């Protein structure tokens, strides 16, 4: 296979161990995602199930830069990677997918509703566009704390998809964020499709940055397949948000390598809206492959070391599955618990 290597956009202020951590985090997400369809087919996981394969750079390049739990993260139902990046142990993620009491939401949320407030992760959201008005509120609370209660200059990072850009509530929230000037980093996970509907088939104005700017939020579009590009942009933008208190919009161009969800599982149905050639073309830009090649070229990791990392990561996923399977289901008398605090 032709070697694709990351272009270094900025100079090497990033430590070697940080690069390895980035690589490991992306691989952890990938290997966990690769394990879940089998668990679904074995009827151990139910409900909807959305994988993040191909989009790992969007969380790996951003979330480790945050000051969790003071900074806050919100995202969509495609949330396994976000939880891992926030530091939720793979065991708790997997246990939640299996609906176990040891899951990060006690088995009450499932794949779409991973959450970990003590780590600053305020959750995945099953409603397209849903997290954006919530982010407005979280951002307002952060500003309020800073201004009124002596809090620090913390930020909220809110992820959502290209399909969400067509939801009315997203634009109401953008307008209010632009109006009130809130410390929010909006990350548009533009993976080209909302289920089977391409961007071209869903909007008359595919310039998403323009739409953010229309609401008074500055922004730019970057390559989301290159984790170092993502990281450099994120660092610059996070610093800027902390300094100015004003929101920023990063459109990250990316691609999901598998189907939309378990119901669009990679085999026949995706050919209704995209071609295998297109998928293969994007796979050449696999963020993990790109960073792996970069690390090798720089002599930071050799293949043996990379294999060793992979083996550790696979072991972690296997352990998470074993932990989840050995965990009890939530007790039946918890059914009526947590309706209210």
């Amino acid at each position, binding site marked *: 296979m032709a070697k694709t290597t990351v272009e270094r956009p900025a100079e090497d202020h990033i430590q070697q161990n940080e690069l390895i951590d980035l690589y490991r985090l992306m691989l952890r997400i990938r290997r966990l995602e690769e394990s879940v369809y089998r668990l679904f087919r074995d009827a151990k996981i139910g409900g909807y199930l959305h994988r993040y394969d191909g989009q790992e750079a969007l969380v790996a390049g951003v979330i480790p830069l945050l000051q969790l739990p003071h900074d*806050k993260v919100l995202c969509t139902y495609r949330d396994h990677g976000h939880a891992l990046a926030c530091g939720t142990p793979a065991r708790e993620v997997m246990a939640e997918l299996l609906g176990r009491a040891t*899951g*990060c*939401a*006690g*088995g*009450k*949320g499932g794949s779409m*509703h991973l*959450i*970990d*407030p*003590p780590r600053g992760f*305020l*959750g995945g*959201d*099953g*409603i397209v566009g*849903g997290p*954006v*008005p*919530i*982010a*407005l*509120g*979280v*951002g*307002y*609370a*952060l500003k*309020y*704390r800073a*201004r*009124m*209660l002596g809090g620090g200059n913390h930020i*909220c990072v809110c992820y959502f998809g290209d399909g969400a850009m067509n939801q*009315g*509530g997203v634009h*109401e*929230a953008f*307008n*209010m964020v632009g*109006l*009130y000037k809130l410390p929010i980093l909006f990350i548009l996970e533009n993976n080209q499709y909302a289920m089977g509907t391409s961007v071209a088939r869903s909007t008359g104005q595919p310039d998403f940055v323009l739409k953010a700017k229309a609401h008074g939020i500055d922004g730019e579009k970057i390559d989301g397949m290159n984790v170092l590009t993502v990281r450099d942009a994120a660092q610059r933008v996070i610093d800027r948000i902390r300094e100015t208190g004003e929101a920023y919009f990063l459109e990250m161009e990316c691609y999901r390598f598998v189907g939309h969800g378990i119901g669009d599982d990679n085999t026949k149905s995706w050919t209704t809206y995209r071609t295998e050639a297109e998928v293969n073309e994007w796979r050449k830009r696999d963020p993990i492959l790109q960073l792996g090649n970069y690390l090798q070229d720089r002599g930071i990791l050799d293949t043996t070391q990379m294999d060793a990392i992979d083996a550790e990561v696979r072991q972690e996923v296997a352990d998470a599955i074993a932990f989840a399977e050995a965990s009890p289901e*939530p007790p039946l008398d918890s059914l009526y*618990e*947590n*309706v*209210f*605090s």
Partner: protein
Amino acid sequence: MATMRYQQAVRLALTEEMERDPTVFLCGEEIGQYQGTYRVTEGLLDRFGPMRVVDTPISEIGIAGMATGAAMAGLRPVAEFMTWSFALEAMDQLVNHAAKITYMSGGRIQCPVVFRGPAGVGTQLSAQHSQSLESWYAHTPGFKVVMPAFPADAKGLLKTAIRDPNPVVFMEHAGLYGLQGDVPDDPEFLVPFGVAAIRREGTDATLISYSRGVHLCLKAAEALARDGIECEVIDLRTLVPLDIETVLQSVRKTHRAVVVHEEWKNVGFGAELSARIHEHAFYDLDAPVERVAGADVPMPYAKNLERAAIPNDNDVIAAVKRTLS
């Protein structure tokens, strides 16, 4: 004790709670510079400043999300809907977010938010502005639903709502804003949720209502008393949690029940009350539970049609008489 209007009592609760707790803030349309569509928030912008009294654009989804997200991040927002009819815009943020986040997270996150504003029917506001939708929220697990009938309760219940760690739907009645009543000055005067008030004691029939319906019941009870029929009038105050015990105790004494509300009869809150009474006190009843409710039509504009669509005290009197015949 001071005498004040219902609307002033709401304002007093907001003011006291904002003085007490620096994490309480308000957001909504026209609540600040304009001083509130119904003047509920008059003077609060001057007193607390723009961070704590936030004028919003006409964006109900944004308002609901702002309040919900801020609550998830540890503040105690009180969001005003200009009227509850406009909250329909925000149904997803309310029902699928505010009401569910605590449960979905297995209790790992709290959502101490109050959504308040005027509800109720009348004054020829017609179909889109004149309706009562409390059952939509009472139906949804995760909301507490509060509908005060008197100024003192407006204050005491709103203070409890703001201190509650859960999403509270607080429906004021636009038609009661001018109602005068005695209101305790005590800044620790709290009215607990889930405790109904017996507004009038009686032995012949139990009238159960909330919000403005309570006043219809009291008027009807007074008229019936002149005919020697003594009605007990129960003001539920909160629909969720529901003080069904007080209702059942009364029904066991009077053997007759009439439920009264302004919202539509079909699948309205009265259906739930009636079902619960039948489930738990069937053998104590001397007559089927009667329901007095709004006509099942979008609210008409013309005065005569509107009058026919809104329940009044004569409807309550007729219903009581049916239970006695």
